[in-house]
């Protein structure tokens, strides 16, 4: 069976581009704090979501709606209406992280398929089975901190489908638990839907030397001709004493396209591409590459050569935790 390609769409145009490029499934979110990519100019209003779902269904693709931030106490209605509206728009599933919202959805929208967001940081079979038994979760998006053998071990102990990231921005933290962005900006992906929000990012280019600041702190300084990074704290370059270096991770992007056969053998159902904040050009190029790869795998052909380096942060790529030991 062909592995499912799950593609990002930050706008209706990106959704159409993803579907035309061969996405089996597209994930997107409403234009508010209910999803973890709450960026300016992005996301869907209710009418756009309805039209987007209809377009995808006409072309045989599915739409998953990410409602994967954690509701603020006293304001749960915003998240509850997002779930109800996703179902009304015809979404094939919702991607949720919060246990309370999962319980609400299971109770009030039992026919709506529930996926567990990477924001829930479910990284072992016990907790995944708990979510399945308690809230009827059918699929889990695994955190980007697991190796391929660890993923295989999880799949051996659960009936829940697993979805793993194979391309795009690399979050190296326990997602849904990370507060690094909050330290510098007061905002986090967990509560506000934004990691290192653009409103707190500033670039200063002086004679080709580029400073990238987050919340007033210099996170990167690169010389003329060097690739520009986005200033996230987990990929920042810091000086302490005599040493200067990247503390957690370099400014690189994940690219696990060469690991697709191993991920299939590990029992993975779906391959997820990160990047709802990226353009329709990015979405289409990445989708075409990965669709070609899974089709080739299914047909027993060798995987096509990758062509995606220039789309990557820092113009460098890594296989992330799938094949490495963390510092």
């Amino acid at each position: 069976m062909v592995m499912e390609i799950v593609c990002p769409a930050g706008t209706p145009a990106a959704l159409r581009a993803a579907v035309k490029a061969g996405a089996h499934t597209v994930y997107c979110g409403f234009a508010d704090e209910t999803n973890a990519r709450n960026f300016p100019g992005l996301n869907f209003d209710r009418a756009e979501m309805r039209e987007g779902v209809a377009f995808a269904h006409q072309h045989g693709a599915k739409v998953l709606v990410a409602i994967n931030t954690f509701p603020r106490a006293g304001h749960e209605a915003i998240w509850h209406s997002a779930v109800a509206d996703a179902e009304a728009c015809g979404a094939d599933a919702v991607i949720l992280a919060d246990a309370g919202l999962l319980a609400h959805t299971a109770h009030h929208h039992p026919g709506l398929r529930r996926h567990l967001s990477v924001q829930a940081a479910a990284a072992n079979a016990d907790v995944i089975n708990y979510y399945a038994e308690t809230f009827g979760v059918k699929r889990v998006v695994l955190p980007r901190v697991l190796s391929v053998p660890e993923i295989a071990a999880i799949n051996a102990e659960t009936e829940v489908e697993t979805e793993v990231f194979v391309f795009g921005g690399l979050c190296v933290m326990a997602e849904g638990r990370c507060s690094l962005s909050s330290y510098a900006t007061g905002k986090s992906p967990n509560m506000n839907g934004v990691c290192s929000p653009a409103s707190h990012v500033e670039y200063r280019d002086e004679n080709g030397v580029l400073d990238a600041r987050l919340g007033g702190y210099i996170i990167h300084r690169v010389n003329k001709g060097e690739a520009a990074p986005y200033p996230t704290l987990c990929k920042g370059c810091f000086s302490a004493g005599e040493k200067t270096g990247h503390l957690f991770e370099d400014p690189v992007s994940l690219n696990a396209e060469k690991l697709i056969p191993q991920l299939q053998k590990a029992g993975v159902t779906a391959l997820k591409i990160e990047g709802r904040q990226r353009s329709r050009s990015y979405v289409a190029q990445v989708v075409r590459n990965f669709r070609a790869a899974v089709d080739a795998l299914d047909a027993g052909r060798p995987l096509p050569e990758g062509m995606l380096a220039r789309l990557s942060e820092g113009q460098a790529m890594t296989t992330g935790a799938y094949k490495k030991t963390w510092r």
Partner: protein
Amino acid sequence: MSQSPAQIPRFPQVATYPLRVLPFAPLSAILSAFSRKIAQKHPGMFRRLGEYDHSRFILDPTDLPFVICLDPNGGNPRVSVTRGPADGAARIAGPLAALLGLVHGAYDGDALFFSRDLVIEGDTAAALALRNAVDDAELDFAQELSDLSGPLAHSMQRVLALIERRTGVNLSRPEEAELW
């Protein structure tokens, strides 16, 4: 597949000479009228700007001898062309072909930024909102210009095609098959 940033064409310097003596007042008026027509046709683009729909954007084609100041003005945009630096909430600078490629979906904005073909200064969130709004609008400048040219549409298309051939800069949205 779209061009890699390394292949972004630069507007030929010799072709910029006439632009250096161009009177900017009429050019600004024409661009304002053009942008208002686009706003009428793509109101969703200005809605997507959200809180930045009154931010002033400086669009700086670094291979041309002027900068373009875009004030979305809540969906009733104004455009002015000026020489030298200009003040605004955000400045987006790069070769004309890169800026047009962003509009036409030929290039990915982040990739252009990572490769430093594009420079962003000022309010990053405003620049991001503009990028996302324009990306969703699926604009085609050449088509928009032709649509506005009425009976002269055919002549306009020939002029634009001539400019594209002479400068190497795409003024129209490539077909999706060749785009991606």
